[in-house]
């Protein structure tokens, strides 16, 4: 990784970190925290789906595992929330590795892999809903005890900085993946698995590493969700809504790019929130905007917002070079 790789991430992170000093409005802070939690989970999805090309429809399985593990550890075993966070990530990675092992070993790809992950998430949802140690359908309520040691903060800005730090960390991780040998192998598997194998890439190993990383990051976002809202039930933690959120953000922002998930999450939720502000009294207007952005992005911006920006930039450059060529033609 060179300095050029890191500078944009660091600059954006610093700018974002300064935001609470300017914006003190609680609704904005609350919105940013939730959006960044979604962005974090989406970054997790992007490692597997974007770089590895393995589209999962069931990242709720990892999100929910993160949320439940941290909640259960605190409630049933009195484990500290920060330690719970680490265990939750490990549990997310373990669940992801297991699901990955079962499905990649059987050679499931494309839509088959997507369906299997979807099924796993649903199984988890039903189990969490039925088992008593997950609180069953009544869900789990983390005790409200505002103290930094409990990962609960009186000031929303502190939680914002925490989530931002994690998002930045994963941005750096993603950049590293992009530049590393592992990332190159992952992209090779995405583009043509058979060709990658022929070149000596151990595709199963690469995919398992990717899904474990992806699971850990998404579990982290689930854990933060639980710490922020302090209540989870089977539908919130393992529901299909979160699987959809986590795959929509990178698709809108730019699949397989470093900033795609964050841009996508901010765009989708930001537009929804703005629409709510302006269209005020009409219920559901933000959802209409959400749907419209999705349709537009899929129809016109195949590579997401970042892809679109890149195309526009290339077109601009193309016009310039064409112009230069015409000049040189004229000169000849």
């Amino acid at each position, binding site marked *: 990784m060179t300095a050029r790789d890191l500078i944009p991430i660091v600059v954006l992170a610093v700018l974002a970190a300064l935001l609470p000093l300017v914006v003190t409005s609680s*609704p904005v802070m*609350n919105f940013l925290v939730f959006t960044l939690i979604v962005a974090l989970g989406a970054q997790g999805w992007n490692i597997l789906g974007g770089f590895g090309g393995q589209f999962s429809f069931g990242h709720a399985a990892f999100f929910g595992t993160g949320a439940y593990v941290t909640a259960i550890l605190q409630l049933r075993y009195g484990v500290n929330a920060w330690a719970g966070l680490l265990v939750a990530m490990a549990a997310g990675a373990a669940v992801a590795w297991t699901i990955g092992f079962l499905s990649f070993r059987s050679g499931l790809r494309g839509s088959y892999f997507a369906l299997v992950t979807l099924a796993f998430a649903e199984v988890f949802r039903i189990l969490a*809903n039925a088992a008593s140690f997950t609180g*069953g359908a009544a869900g789990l309520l983390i005790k409200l005890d505002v103290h930094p040691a409990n990962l609960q903060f009186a000031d929303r800005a502190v939680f914002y900085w925490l989530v931002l730090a994690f998002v930045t960390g994963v941005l750096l991780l993603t950049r590293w993946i992009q530049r590393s040998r592992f990332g190159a192998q992952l992209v090779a598997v995405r583009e043509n698995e058979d060709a990658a194998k022929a070149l000596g890439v151990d595709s199963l190993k690469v995919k398992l590493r990717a899904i474990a990383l992806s699971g850990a990051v998404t579990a982290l976002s689930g854990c933060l969700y639980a710490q922020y809202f302090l*209540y989870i*039930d089977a539908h919130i933690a393992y529901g299909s809504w979160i699987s959809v959120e986590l795959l929509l953000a990178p698709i809108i922002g730019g699949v397989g790019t470093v900033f795609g998930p964050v841009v996508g999450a901010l765009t989708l939720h930001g537009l929804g929130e703005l629409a709510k502000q302006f269209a005020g009294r009409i219920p559901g207007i933000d959802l209409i905007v959400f749907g419209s952005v999705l349709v537009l992005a899929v129809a016109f911006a195949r590579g997401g917002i970042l892809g679109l920006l890149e195309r526009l930039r290339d077109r601009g450059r193309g016009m310039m070079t064409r112009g230069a060529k015409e000049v040189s033609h004229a000169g000849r």
Partner: protein
Amino acid sequence: MGRSVQDSALFGVSRRTVLKAGAAAAAFATVGAPSILRAQTPAVKIGILQPVTGALAHDGDLGRLGAEMAINEINAAGGLKALGGAKIEMVFGDARSTPEAGTQEVERMQAEGVCAIVGGFASPICLAASQAAARYDLPYLVDVGVSDQIMARGLTNTFRFSPGFGKVTQVALDNLTKINELAGKPAKTVVLVHEDGLFGSGLAKLLQTELPKRGFEILETIAHPTPARDMSNVALRIRSLNPDLVIPSNYYGEFVLLARTMQQQRIKPKGVYAVLGGAASNGRFVKEFPQAAQNVIDCNHWHDPQNPQAQALRKAVEAQGKSFAYNVPLNYSNVLLLADAIERAGSADRKKIIEALNSSTFEGHIMPYGPTKFVNGQNEGATPINTQIQGEDIKVIFPEYFAEAKANFPAT
């Protein structure tokens, strides 16, 4: 050139004249036209939080309607008298049927300066929203959310006027036993049909331990997901078991589906006894599927049918072409309760409102609860009552003190 000279030359008015005019104006305002002064009292903002989009939109709409009608009535009657006739301004928030959206709306309401919030409807929304409000000591009145966890957290800002899950199920069981005894104990065997979410499975678990103690035999417990698209298998199972009593606990869509499927397959148990039934006391169900709805008994939130104010409210709602359900009187009563607390607090100060709610003995509501008495935020007098769909109407059948009609049980 001196600055003061220029100023007075420009405006041609001295400081003394301005003072005189001001004093005269003030005197005119206080003595001559008190009504003008009163009209300028700033409005008191109340947050109304309901899920009006998403899966719970139907309930959210009814909840908002109830709150709106109460606010309009209070304003039409001259506003909050203790605050110089201040009007109540509704700040509405759509909880979109999710806890995150509920929290976000609480933050917005806080930014807009509401003095209290009423609503939430579903338990997860109430849990998240009341917690967000607790950060600001913002009084939060839960309208429906029955989960016992809501009141178990010790949040000083959270109040629940309606009964919780434990209370509802207790009363439901007691009443069922009594209704059965009054009818000569026709029902002995029971099939439970429940949704697999928060209240369905919780209720099923409780009934499984409690019903046998009261002399009922549970033949089977059938769980189904929400949403469920087909109830044929459930209905067939009920037919083969042939129980005296079916006890369903599910949401609107599934309850309607189950009742219709049972009607189509001509399954007629001696009674259908719903606890917090999703549709069993909903005017829409009666209107749309009167045959399937006949004789369904429910133990649920319901207004006091003898209360003239409640009767007027129901008429007003039905005159708007809307169906009546418990959400309307509950939210209506909650807003009245809050307004009473603000009146007694004498200000829109949050701490004072919380104090006033804690010492509340409010009787002006339209629920069959008697005067309010809050212990740790829970209204002790809150209780569900039994209704039955008879003809085209939902009638209260138990307890006898409130009853409008006799229970048709066993169903004929």
